[in-house]
């Protein structure tokens, strides 16, 4: 693999810094935006993060304090702060506990992230570099599935999970079971299966565009060296695709972790399988009596995606470097 001569990579169009007067409305707007002063940007940053900060401040205030005054009062009376809200929410024995539902959220988000990545990277490689019959039409079909909104398929899918799919033939009175009843209704499995399925079109589309853009010479060289498709995929394509895999993993994990609709439909009334999002929605209680727990619960829920983002961020940067420096 280290035998072939380095291929000069295309540097791409080079931006001319102030070389010629910028023309066109796009360039002008871009110029304006680029010249916005730092302090103004900081002001916008502060305005945008103020509500989140208020939520964070509220999460440390007691119920009566939250009801009596706004979060900014935290500055005047730091002695009124308390960790009780977090204790209530994280106490594994209490009825307002999030701990079980956090495990459920992991049980949903992890398979729903790994499975589409694994399947889509294989599929994207095949679409990009294996020349089989009907390849283009199959790809068009896959990508056009992007246009199908997940919402319209929810109830049919639920029916499928509840009772399977059966085809009754007229006249001969025979029922063929196409998909048996796996008894998946009300389980986390039903949720991640749905997420995994609906993530595939976008995952294939995204990964295909990246993988098909890898330099062709690399593949030719690998073939000459005697690599088969699996070796090329495993030793060449996957390492080069780490940045896009990480990007997709971040998106997919956040989407499934924060999902309410799919989980709500598929888990239904089974209290043992609800993820954190549904648990938090129920936390406020009748007439919002326990609303004071919501800020702390929201931060417990948000902590995990932030963690995932920062962990995968490392692969983002390293992957980019690994792609540019040939190993």
């Amino acid at each position, binding site marked *: 693999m280290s035998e072939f001569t380095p291929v000069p990579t295309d540097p791409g169009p080079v931006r001319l810094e102030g070389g010629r007067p910028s023309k066109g409305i796009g360039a002008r707007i871009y110029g304006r935006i680029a010249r916005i002063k730092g302090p103004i940007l900081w002001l916008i940053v502060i305005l945008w993060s103020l509500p989140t900060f208020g939520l964070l401040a509220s999460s440390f205030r007691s*119920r*009566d304090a939250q*009801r*009596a005054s706004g979060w900014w009062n935290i500055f005047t009376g730091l002695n009124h702060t308390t960790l009780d809200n977090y204790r209530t929410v994280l106490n594994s024995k*209490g*009825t*307002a506990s999030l701990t079980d539902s956090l*495990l*459920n959220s*992991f*049980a949903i988000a*992890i*398979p729903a*992230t*790994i499975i589409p990545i694994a399947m889509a990277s294989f599929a994207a490689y095949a679409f990009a570099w294996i020349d089989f019959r009907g390849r283009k039409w199959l790809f068009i079909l896959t990508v056009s599935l992007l246009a199908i909104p997940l919402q319209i398929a*929810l*109830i049919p899918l*639920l*029916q499928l999970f*509840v*009772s399977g799919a059966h085809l009754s033939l007229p006249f001969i009175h025979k029922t063929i079971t196409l998909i048996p009843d796996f*008894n998946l*209704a*009300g*389980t*986390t*499995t039903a949720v*991640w299966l749905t997420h995994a399925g609906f993530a595939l079109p976008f995952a294939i589309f995204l990964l295909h565009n990246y993988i098909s853009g890898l330099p062709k010479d690399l593949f030719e060289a690998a073939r000459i060296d005697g690599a088969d498709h699996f070796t090329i995929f495993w030793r060449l394509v*996957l*390492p080069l695709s*780490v940045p896009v*895999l990480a990007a997709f993993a971040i998106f997919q994990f956040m989407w499934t972790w924060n999902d309410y609709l799919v989980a*709500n*439909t598929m888990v*239904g*009334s*089974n*209290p*043992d*399988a609800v993820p954190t999002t549904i648990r938090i*929605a*129920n936390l*406020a*209680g*009748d*007439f*919002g*009596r*326990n609303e004071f727990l919501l800020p702390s619960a929201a931060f417990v829920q948000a902590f995990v995606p932030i963690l995932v983002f920062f962990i995968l961020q490392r*692969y983002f940067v*390293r*992957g980019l470097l*690994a792609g540019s420096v*040939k*190993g």
Partner: protein
Amino acid sequence: MRSPLVKFAAVCTVLALTAAACGSDKKSSTAGSTGTTVKATAGSTGGSTTATGGAAKDFGGAKVLITGPERDDPSAGAINAVLQTWGKTRGLDITYAGDADWEANINTQVQGGNPPDIGIFPQPGKLAEFARAKSIKPLADNVTASIKKFWSPDYSNYANVDGVQYGVPVKTDLKSLVWYQPDKFKAKGYKVPTTFDEFTALVKKMAADGGPKPLCVGIESGTATGWPFTDWTEEMVLRQDGGDVYNQWVEHKISFNDPKIVKAMDTVLGLWSKDNVFASGGNIAATNFGDNAQALFDGKCYMHRQASFFSGFFPKGTKFADGSAGAVDVFYFPDINGDKPVLTAGTYAAGFNDKAATMAVLEYMSTADYAQKRQAEQTKLLNGGLSGFLSAAIGQDPSVYQPLEQGFLKILSESKLSRFDGSDQMPAAVGAGTFWTLGTSAVNGDLTAQKAADQIEASWPK
């Protein structure tokens, strides 16, 4: 090139293993439990022909799942505790799960073929809808007999659809209450009003005296903003025109913009004038109805008309009806014609299947024993605080209720005219729609009562 790949693969493997562990754990437990459900159901349906009587019978671990909109710690916890204790004596494994969006989710679950065994309906209108669509089953004879024994028709009739009983009343909210602090009244020499004229005179006097405002009003409640206004309007219709007009109004036999209804709305808006009302959020529509408990407690207003569950909103440690300084008490929202009308609300349990186990649980939920055990449990969970729960079931031991709550029960039993919250019975497009939104516009002064009523009438489903 190799090391990042190895690391990435390692991370993937670890994550995948974790996922598999979590996944398989959940799945196996669910699979196991569904297995028992099937077995137990088979057993219990087989035995149902022989033992439909009240004799204690063992269901061999049958699972019964109940869902409903009540999801508070004390409520959901108390329902679970009481039903599970009772279920153990019958070999039933009962679970209650609260759901914030129950009214919407139950539709999806029924369509998807995945409803719970029992649902607790907060609105009789919704229950009737489900009954007519045959999604819920008529109650077995032993359940209806038990309802007859423990509930006055005033309450059970709302779950009777076209002559068939579908729902079991399980909870009663009393709405015709005014919360106040007796020592504040005493300090100023105000007297608790016993007629509506006395009430309006007292409001006028308090406003003229300056200082705290007579009333606290807030109608903000998220997507349900406006419901306290509908409650006030219903109270006024009931007081000014009596129960028959009220029924005609709810059933749309008289139009929504009938002069009587408009007059009731005008009376409410008149009472809610700027001089009379304190609203912590600046104006009535921007003030959460629950925030007013703090305002009343802080002495920013004298009175607050709100239902029995309102006790839960007062700051921790508030004393109720014990004569101490700062204690909070209630008086009956006074009437006009001497018929002591009360506005109530409540929940009804109905079965999505007619398995013997489901019907046995429904039968138990209709009893006074269930109501008083739930009350006792809920009080215990709140460390002796006011539970917010109330039941009009006949034959409860009143000592499980605290003095203030016993007062609620007294008001309920003394009333000769009891009506269920009208907006909960109207079609959802009005009762949970335009009555709230256009009512809010009227409160804001964007519409007159007449115009709001006209537009609500126009929005009534044909």
